[in-house]
């Protein structure tokens, strides 16, 4: 079933609003707990209606859109790769999203391994034994798509919630996204 009035739901960077004007006293920042409250409540609501797998997929898709828009609007896509990565690391740290580090990059095959420490989504969560950073997977794929124009499959292989202190993601190209 196709959603109705799709255009009205299409997210653009401008939809984030003028926060300085709207929150002159409370400002730009909120505690991590508020972010997680929203994300995990949303995950449960979707999972209750459609199941865990669908909830994970929707969060991944949302992350992809967010990553794409973030890259287009907050990063300099004209920079060469090394400088782009440097800018991305700085930006994610400044926004308190996490500490991004690359472990391995194979440029010809566009495969890479990266880690995110102090991750906004999961660091400090109870250990449940399953990875939870579906949104992050999409976010990373969205950023890379906006920068390189290539669709990527990003998979979290280690997560705080699986007992690892650092989230590790494996990144590789995938057939074009529809």
């Amino acid at each position: 079933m196709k959603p109705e009035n799709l255009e009205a739901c299409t997210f653009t960077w401008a939809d984030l609003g003028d926060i300085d004007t709207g929150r002159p006293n409370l400002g730009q920042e909120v505690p991590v707990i508020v972010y997680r409250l929203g994300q995990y409540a949303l995950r449960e609501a979707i999972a209750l209606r459609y199941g865990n797998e669908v909830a994970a997929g929707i969060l991944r898709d949302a992350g992809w859109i967010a990553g794409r828009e973030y890259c287009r609007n907050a990063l300099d896509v004209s920079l060469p790769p090394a400088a782009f990565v440097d800018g991305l690391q700085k930006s994610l740290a400044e926004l308190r999203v996490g500490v991004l580090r690359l472990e391995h990059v194979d440029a010809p095959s566009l495969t890479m391994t990266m880690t995110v420490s102090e991750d906004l989504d999961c660091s400090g969560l109870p250990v449940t034994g399953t990875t939870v950073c579906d949104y992050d997977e999409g976010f990373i794929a969205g950023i890379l798509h906006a920068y390189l124009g290539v669709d990527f499959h990003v998979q979290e292989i280690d997560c705080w919630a699986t007992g690892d202190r650092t989230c590790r993601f494996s990144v590789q190209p995938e057939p074009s996204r529809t």
Partner: protein
Amino acid sequence: MTTTAGATLAALAARLEAVADGRVPAPTIIEFPTDAEPELRALLATVSRLETNVAAVREFSAALAEGRLDFAPPPRLHLLGPLKALQASLRHLTWQTQEVAGGHLEHRVDFLGEFSDAFNRMIEALRNKRHAEAEALHASRDAGVGHLASGLAHEINTPIQYMADNLRFLEDVLAAPGDDAGGDLHLPADRAADVRAAVAETLEGALAIGTTVQAMREFSLAGELGTGRCDLNRAINNTLIVSRHAWQEAATVDLRLDAQLPLVAGATAEVCQVVLQLLLNAAQALEDAGLHGRGRITVTTRVADDAVLLEIVDNGPGIPVERREQVFDLFWTSRPDKGRRGLGLPTCRDIVTNRLGGRLEVGGAPGSGAVLTVRLRPASC
């Protein structure tokens, strides 16, 4: 407590003692006594898991100690969390080091304590070293070219001078009173007019060559003649003449030079270098914008407050406000695809700031041409 339970507990105590001493035995399946109580069974299972986990910690630690960063520890083992974080950091540092070895000096390492500071200081030192090497290479190349140009200019200038003298002599002869319009040469009037025109044209050409050669000579010798005082207008004129080939296809240059300009403090060679780089930068921006032949560069000198200002303005697309500091970053270029190395403007700022004691700033209304303003100190009397 039964005898069996007591023996089992003693065996467990011995195994725990071994773990505490760091003598981790190979994980083994502990045989449960058939009559063991449930609590004892639970304890046996826990000790067995502890042994397995400690063995994994020991094996992982040993791998890291030996530098085997590709070691794959058992998944989902919380006890290994800090070691996995260390492994992630070491892998990241390995990648960073490979990047540095590949010549990428943009990266920084953060949140790794003293190592971050040391690594970042190393990157900064490498950047400075690369800058110094680039400068030294340029200086040495410039010096070589300068000496060559100066020698050539001298060789050309001497014959040009006597050619010009002889042509002036011919003009005088042709203009001298004689039997007809040909003066002392007694040429028919129509031939005399042709010869006078040819001589005048040749003289004009010779003088133009002389002007160019003189400008080249002054430009190339500027470093040696540097007295700490520079005639900015003259430096601009000489630089324009010697660099004409580099900008004339991209733009016309409009000069608005204050004839009453005082001398500025600084070596002429360095002032010429700044003028040259700013001109080339403007010409490249105009070329990149596709303004071939329609570009315009306006060079203005004037006195403002207690400073001497040099402004170089082009009619290209300008430099976006958010990039106006970035253009002074060493090796940053908007057009790496054109083989540019990002040295021009950083070098200019370095010369202006550190050697001439002035300031170099980028301005211009967004979307209109770039305005590069050099603020120099007047030379003391």
